[in-house]
């Protein structure tokens, strides 16, 4: 069909379609396969997919996927960090960051390390009980270069939208592979190790003292919290509206890094194709994830694994991999000496509806 002219309405409709301009995955915090809340946290953990919350000598926290969102923006979820034990006297190495790590092969169009390097603009909605200066840092992991900028939370307990542009970097290209090349960090706490220099307000060889100069101490009171949603990082110097993706598309992008199997229904069999055990000790199930994962994943099991055959569950098994772990398929084993099950063609499954297998090829 021939097109005579492009109307402004048609152009607007066209530009509002998803085009994957957001480098961040799950910026609306809608996916949380690992769980919606973690409490008593003093180290590293995650709720919302792709986002790492990492604390060192920075109080105790509950993190969660929250339904507190900015009004009228279209978001249904946010990430929340709530301080439950304060630390008002930070050590030099104290640090608290909310971070995402991005594969180099997704960043080649930014032309980093060339004279045509693209600027990057990050936009997000943020809210906190503690006002003041906060730091956003982007780090080129391949070339150990960093760029930090500050933003201000002006009104307590009020959603504010922030936009920050980082100039392009003509030094150091991103690797074109499945390893992580770019780190995006939202600082929430930083000790003097990270604040004693001059804030790196342009690309520079990464220096710890310059990363988070001016950062408030969000851990200084149990009244403090921090919400964020609608995080978008895109090429160029202008922030466009947040790119909402269909639920299934967003989930598929997350599944590349984390795949939770089970925990949602009464019969979460590991292997619909049939399992097998021999008379010795091992049963196994073949797993094919919905999308290829970034790398061969690690496996954790939340709960108990049982072996099922002919409507009978056999308990007391330990679990693990057996050989053949790749990004698109792998075997999970259940082991038990002298198990007493003599027939073949068994299945592995979760013991209860809340149990699940979690496969991770994340960067943390």
């Amino acid at each position: 069909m021939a097109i005579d002219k492009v109307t402004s309405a048609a152009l607007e409709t066209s530009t509002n379609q998803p085009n994957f301009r957001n480098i961040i995955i799950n910026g609306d915090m809608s996916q949380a396969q690992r769980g919606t809340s973690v409490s008593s946290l003093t180290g590293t953990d995650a709720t919302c997919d792709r986002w790492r919350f990492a604390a060192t000598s920075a109080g105790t926290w509950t993190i969660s996927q929250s339904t507190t969102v900015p009004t009228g923006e279209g978001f249904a979820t946010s990430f929340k960090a709530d301080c439950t034990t304060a630390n008002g006297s930070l050590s030099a190495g104290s640090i608290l960051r909310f971070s995402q790590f991005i594969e180099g092969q997704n960043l080649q169009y930014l032309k980093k390390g060339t004279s045509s390097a693209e600027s990057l603009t990050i936009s997000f909605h943020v809210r906190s009980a503690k006002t003041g200066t906060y730091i956003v840092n982007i780090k080129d992991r391949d070339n150990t270069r960093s760029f930090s900028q500050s933003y201000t939370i002006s009104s307590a307990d009020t959603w504010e939208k922030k936009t920050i542009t980082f100039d392009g970097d003509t030094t150091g290209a991103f690797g074109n592979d499945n390893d992580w090349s770019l780190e995006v960090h939202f600082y929430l706490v930083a000790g003097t190790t990270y604040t004693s220099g001059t804030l790196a307000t342009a690309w520079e060889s990464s220096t710890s003292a310059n990363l988070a100069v001016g950062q408030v101490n969000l851990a200084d009171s149990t009244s403090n919290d921090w919400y964020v949603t609608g995080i978008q990082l895109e090429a160029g110097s202008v922030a466009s509206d947040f790119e909402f993706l269909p639920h299934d598309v967003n989930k598929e992008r997350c599944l590349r890094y984390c795949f939770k199997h089970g925990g949602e229904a009464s019969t979460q069999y590991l292997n619909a194709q049939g399992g097998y055990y021999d008379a010795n000790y091992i049963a196994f199930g073949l797993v094919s994830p919905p999308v290829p994962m970034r790398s061969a994943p690690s496996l954790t099991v939340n709960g108990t694994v049982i072996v099922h055959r002919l409507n009978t569950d056999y308990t007391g098994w330990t679990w693990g991999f057996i050989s053949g772990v790749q990004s698109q398929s792998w075997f999970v084993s259940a082991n038990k000496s002298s198990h007493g099950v003599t027939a073949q063609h068994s299945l592995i499954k979760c013991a209860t509806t809340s149990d699940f297998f979690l496969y991770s090829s994340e960067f943390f």
Partner: protein
Amino acid sequence: MFIEIKKIYLNNEFIYYHCILQNGKQMAVPLDEANSDYQAIQQWISEGNTVIDNGN
């Protein structure tokens, strides 16, 4: 991060690491250099820690 790491064998072949984490969880880690947990294990070993190896 790690409390204990053990090599797991099948048919005399070293096939994965079984780890006990500080949060009490257990994790199986494949022998894949692109896996970040595998990388963390190599770092843990380089820091002088010892992996349990009971052979096959």
